[in-house]
């Protein structure tokens, strides 16, 4: 999955998330067209007991725009990384609009992800002392080895624009 945030000079904001689902999708490559086909029907797994023609699979994608009139702020945000999208975007928003972190720190802060068995998975750089205290409270640590979470966002406050592409995927934003 890949997320893009865009703001143009007229103030139009686009938050768009695009995917072929898992790594290289179905891995079916069309040699005549050069297109790699998705494996999006796998998103029904564990979430449905039946599927129908024409149905769209459930999606973790959350291309979002936040607007505050009193603060004259637009925040364009979204993420990539399958099931981790919702929690990593939620944490980035909380970090930025409530905890006072600038957009870059809000995105780069280590995430916590709760898997479908309620195992709590901590990103590698997560504070060890906090992690141990949470475990001591009774939270069961999950066994997730790879984190694919990526958040790309732009905030516009007045006429001041900050754009951040997540360093986790070695992204870099551009503007003028």
């Amino acid at each position: 999955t890949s997320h893009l945030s865009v703001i143009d000079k007229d103030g139009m904001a686009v938050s768009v998330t695009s995917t072929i689902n898992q790594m290289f999708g179905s891995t079916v490559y069309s040699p005549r067209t050069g297109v790699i086909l998705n494996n999006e029907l796998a998103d029904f797994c564990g979430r449905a007991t039946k599927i129908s023609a024409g149905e769209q699979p459930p999606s973790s994608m959350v291309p979002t725009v936040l607007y505050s009139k009193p603060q004259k702020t637009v925040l364009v945000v979204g993420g990539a990384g399958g099931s981790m999208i919702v929690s990593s975007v939620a944490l980035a928003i909380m970090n930025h609009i409530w905890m006072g972190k600038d957009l870059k720190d809000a995105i780069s802060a280590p995430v916590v992800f709760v898997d479908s068995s309620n195992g709590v998975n901590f990103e590698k750089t997560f504070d060890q002392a906090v992690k141990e205290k949470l475990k001591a409270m009774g939270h069961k640590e999950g066994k997730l080895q790879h984190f694919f979470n990526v958040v790309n966002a732009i905030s516009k406050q007045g006429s001041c624009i900050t754009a951040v592409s997540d360093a986790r995927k070695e992204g870099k934003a551009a503007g003028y």
Partner: protein
Amino acid sequence: MSKSKKRVRCCVCFALICVILISILLIILLVKSNRCEYTQAAVAADSEICSDVGRNILQEGGSAVDGAIAALLCTSLVNPQSMGLGGGAIFTVFENPDHVKVINGRERVPKVFKRDLLNDCPQNTALLPGSQWIGVPGEIQAYKKAHDVYGKLPWKTLFKPAIKLAREGFPLPSVLEKYLFFFQKAMVNSSLCSVFCKDNKVLKKGDMLQYPELAKTMEIIADKGPDAFYEGKLAEDLIQDIKSAGGSLSLEDLRSMQAEVKDALPVQLGDYTMYIPPLPASGSLLSFILNVMKGYSLRPESMKGEEEIWTYHHIIETLKFANGLKKYVKDPAFSDGNDTSHLVSLDFADKVRAMIKDEPQPLQYYNVMPSADSMG
């Protein structure tokens, strides 16, 4: 002049110089802290090269949608493991607070599909390659709808940077190198090897990556318009290749694929209105998490000292309840009229917050339905 007077004057001069220097320093720091990174427009993509492509389109007079489409086409080349023309996309487009639309080009189940497909689902998270999992691609349909409504530059212009990049090639990005290495065993045995291998080994950082076939495809779509992907020679070739790989997609599936345009769902979040995509996207889950957490009145101190532990405890507990609500995230056109409005309601968030205790509870407490995690 007495010695003491000279000394006083020296001291005054020194103090004045210090005050001036400190003032200059403070002014520089103030200007720096208030300096805007950008003042006109910006793009945040997964790679610098594609952010640049989007930015250039904006500078040429393109709208945010134009910039997004050009940057997405670029991303399909730079991060082909993540997205591409064979996938789907969801746009949220904000023009002003009264006009925020969602363009949903998510894939759909084809007319003919493996009836017992869900029996092939794994118990744990796993990669699921194979043609039986292919949904009808909606990516280009989403671009078409978005461009029809919000495009400023000609459709063809948006494809130029990606076609050039695909044809001329570019050094393999290090992120893609990591994925190719991770995936090498499967890669060398798949048809993808014709693009991502050299001498039957996956490409390494610095190797040139080219997409001659995809460049031709993009050129056809650029010249003939988005419908060229869904009907005509290109669509026939695509369907034939999918059929050769054992898939069931048909020309009829492609022809009938449409992206939907709906109003974004506005959710109040303090000073902010948050515009989220409706189902089958997870906007309502995001709203649920933030509505619950809003009740804890988070502030910078919430991430300090002992309070940080409680903040994370509350976040984790909320995420557990959010997992239990995932069962509601499905295509509303196929969900038998299930009401999901509670997911974004403040009352429901209050109710759940009241259920969050000072210690974790057993799995069933959160009404968690067993479901596989995905890593798309």
